[in-house]
């Protein structure tokens, strides 16, 4: 019974997950499906042509190709999964905003960092709506650099305020 459960957990579920993600991915991008098929079948066809003289090598190469294909599928699936999750779950800048919220006061975050990130998101959405992904990336790069320069510019004042609060609390 334990072996069956282990089999389900270790083999069946990962395989099902892998197939689900792979097929979803391939359905969305047919040209990648074709490319992967070509990648898989071209060496097969070439090796089958030489099967007479290189039978053991052909067999080994088949396993290498199959393993390579499996790894490729796996990498694409993981990338697709993480990429999608990040895209759906958060808009750009919210991760940075969460990190900054730990360091700076709520007032500073709402006065300084949230408008900066909102501007970045606004420009990012505009660039995407224009159908310009390169500009969208540039906007993100520029936006993140401005967030960090704002963090550096705000740091001395916030640090002084925090030290004063600590001193006041201690006394």
């Amino acid at each position: 019974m334990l072996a069956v459960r282990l089999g389900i957990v270790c083999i069946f579920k990962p395989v099902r997950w892998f197939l689900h993600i792979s097929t979803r991915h391939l359905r969305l991008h047919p040209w990648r499906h074709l490319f992967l098929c070509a990648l898989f079948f071209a060496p097969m066809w070439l090796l089958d042509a030489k099967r007479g003289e290189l039978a053991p090598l052909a067999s080994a190469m088949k396993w290498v190709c199959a393993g390579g294909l499996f790894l490729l599928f796996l990498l694409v699936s993981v990338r697709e999964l993480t990429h999608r999750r990040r895209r759906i779950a958060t808009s750009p800048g919210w991760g940075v905003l969460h990190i900054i919220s730990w360091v700076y006061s709520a007032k500073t975050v709402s006065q300084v960092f949230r408008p900066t990130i909102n501007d970045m998101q606004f420009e990012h959405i505009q660039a995407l709506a224009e159908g310009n992904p390169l500009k969208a990336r540039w906007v993100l790069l520029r936006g993140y650099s401005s967030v960090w320069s704002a963090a550096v510019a705000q740091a001395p004042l916030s640090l002084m305020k925090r030290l004063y609060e600590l001193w006041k609390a201690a006394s």
Partner: protein
Amino acid sequence: MKDLPRLSSIETLILELLAEHRELYGLEMMEASRGKLKRGTIYVTLGRMQDKGYVTSREVEAEGRGPARCVYTLTGHGGRVLGAWQMAGAVFARGVL
């Protein structure tokens, strides 16, 4: 003399822009300043100016898509400080004092 408010060049520029345009977004201020205001520091300055009471902000929902953004307005106190600062600058420029 000790209580006379002092304005930095960036603060003066922001107050002048707000006095001219009534209310502006941060990005619009950057565009109107022609590169004098930087993305990384404009909101730090605006935050300090809000603390001093020179400007106020309110959140405006995006019309089509995008997040709510802050629009900044000059306060009465900010307008008076700007007026006094410009007058003092003009007096110094004429060499009266």
